[in-house]
């Protein structure tokens, strides 16, 4: 009988410990952002490095003002409501699941603070030399090293997934992004994307962007 009791006690302790995931016991300055990021991690990965299969770009270390701007666009329907924007339609409900401005701010702060990492290249066939020429248009806003510029609402491109840059350039050119009348900042990028002559130019400029790194 005693053995049975021991087993019993063990089982119930085991059971109860399985059920409880400790709710962020460690003293984290942004515990709320970290916990809310759990949902983002489903697609963007727990290190924020993206997952092409889930159509989720790398976001770790992206500028906080840009993240805030984009999440706000998703929430208001300026982004993620175009008929052909498959990835955007996946993102919009996720952005909507954040309930308050404070939640948005916390997640943004958490993501912006994540250590960025240059994602591995997935595209082939771009020529960085040619791309450098095309990039002359871009650097006016995105900076010579692609570090971005808050005054012009231009995000950093240094840690972006190349497949994501390609899709977004294509989206801008096709009017899938940047055409919503409320989307003011996107409307600036759209004509810029049109300056690239053809598909090959997109590949080239992305290949060049992939060689850039932040200047200290």
């Amino acid at each position, binding site marked *: 009988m005693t053995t049975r009791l021991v087993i019993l006690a063990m089982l119930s302790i085991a059971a109860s410990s399985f059920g409880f995931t400790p709710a962020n016991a460690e003293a984290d300055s942004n515990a709320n952002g970290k916990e809310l990021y759990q*949902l983002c991690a489903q697609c963007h990965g727990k290190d924020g490095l993206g997952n092409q299969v889930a159509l989720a770009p790398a976001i770790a270390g992206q500028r906080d003002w840009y993240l805030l701007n984009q999440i706000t666009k998703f929430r208001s329907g300026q982004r993620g409501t175009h008929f052909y924007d498959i990835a955007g339609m996946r993102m919009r409900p996720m952005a909507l699941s954040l309930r308050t401005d404070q939640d948005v701010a916390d997640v943004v702060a958490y993501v912006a603070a994540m250590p960025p990492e240059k994602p591995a290249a997935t595209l082939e066939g771009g020529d960085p030399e040619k791309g450098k020429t095309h990039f002359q248009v871009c650097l006016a806003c995105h900076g010579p090293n692609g570090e971005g510029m808050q005054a012009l609402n231009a995000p950093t491109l240094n840690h972006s997934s190349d497949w994501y840059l390609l899709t977004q350039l294509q989206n801008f050119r096709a009017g899938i992004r940047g055409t919503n009348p409320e989307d003011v900042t996107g409307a600036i990028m759209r004509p810029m994307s049109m300056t690239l002559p053809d598909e090959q130019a997109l590949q080239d400029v992305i290949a060049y962007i992939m060689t850039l790194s932040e200047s200290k």
Partner: protein
Amino acid sequence: MSDSHDHHESHGFMSYAFSTDHKVIGMQYMFTGMAMALIGGFFAYAFRMQLAFPGMDVPLYGIVSSAEYNSLVTNHGTIMIFWVAMPVLIAAFGNFLIPLMIGCDDMVFPRLNRLSYQIFLLSAIVLISSFFVEGGGFGGAWTSYPPLSAKAEYNLTPLGSSLWLLAVALEFVAFLLGGINFITTVMNARAPGMTMDDIPMVIWMIVLASILFMASVGPLIAGAVMLFFDQQLGTAFFDPDRGGDPVLWQHLFWFFGHPEVYVVLLPAMGITADVMCVFARKKLFAYRTVLYTAIGTGVLSFFVWAHHQFISGIDPRMANLFTVTTLLISIPIAEMCFVYIATLYGGSIRLTTPMLWALAFLGEFMIGGVTGIFLGASGSDIYLHDSYFVLAHFHYTFFPIAIIGVFAGITFWYPKMFGKMMNETMGKIHFWGTVIPFNCIFIPLFLLGIGGQHRRIYNYEHFPELAGKSMQDMRVFATVSLCIMLIFQFVFLYNFFASLLKGKEAGKNPWKSNTLEWTTESPPPHGNWKELPNCYRGPYEYSVEGREEDYWPQNIPDDEPAGGAA
């Protein structure tokens, strides 16, 4: 504490874990099932809190994200059906009761029995481990419809979904092995003199449930293999882009899924029959009718599966056929309920704790039964399908089955299992503390369903017109009721363990019951009886006229004078 039945075994963990004694295995199933019930209950608490108070930092859990919500809902359902209802109702009671009630010393294949528990335990461990892998636990509902379940890019749980599937498949294997054992044991190892009509109803029901399970689960095992290949090896059985068909999975799943409802229902019905007869001191009304209706239900249950798929893209003409079969199944079930009510007529009813549970089972199950008609009728299912109405309906069937029926069984056989009586006062507090909140949880959910609210929606704030204030109030009410109900379960746990230590000695036959398990010591020794009993009559000979005692145990020969045998 008195310890008679483990004496032949050397004490120690290994001898316990590898025992082939049917009673030990039954207890292991029961405690594993109870531990899993705690997990499943905790999951329910976490996601109900999110529904009532969206975005809340749930105490003991944290913030419930939409991914976690899906995973909690999915695993709550899976655990409660496959790791609580099945192991406790079929495996625990089956293992413990079958040899004792048919008068033999063990199952016919003790080592197979051992193996089946070990596979079951493994499946539970695999399931629990699936919550902690990258991406989290599977969140595609317990029905696991592809393509959502088949592709990681859709479900975003690359490992969780495969581990979930593996766990379910292992669990099926465990119950197939167990089922073969149960059926063979009851067919061949009955006490001398025990005819088909002398088998207690609970044993009949467990055997019928095992047969039903065995006959329905095969296609789903095949389907699980196919889905696993789709997930991990890149086949396209369920991928429409490459020549597969996702609806095939639905057929395979529901061909099993609907009989599965009766797999767990029948044992609970059996427990209720036995408990009711003992405490009403009545013979079961029309024993054979109960048996035939159970068999009829079982057979019919193979022809109703597509009522889960009325609106899922099957040929609409097929829905008419399945409406007819589905509504026909209400006849045997209704008949069974009539028989149980008739059994009470002319009884001498004692409202002990097990009897209260058994009566509550019947009373609540009838609500679950009639609400099924709304969903089985194709016309009204268009509106109610996948709404909270469905959810409330099947909780009104599953809760009586897996919780109320199980408590009836545990409180009734506890004296036999452990040799002690449970505390009646605490038992009654626990009873009312469970049954009243249960109704308070699910009646509001019926109304939400009528109001067009769907299940598995993680936060109704996104549907402003549907989710008015009164709807949210009902959700809060349901959640608060759930918390109250969960708190009352601690009364049971305390009662359970405290009675082990200081409960009154039970003696052989505290309930003055007829069936064979009450003729041996409590708890029964290894081998169950010093001398195996013979059987002379049916299990429900209560209040027979002309006898001094109002019960007549199955093992007493006819010519022996009346009196307390045991």
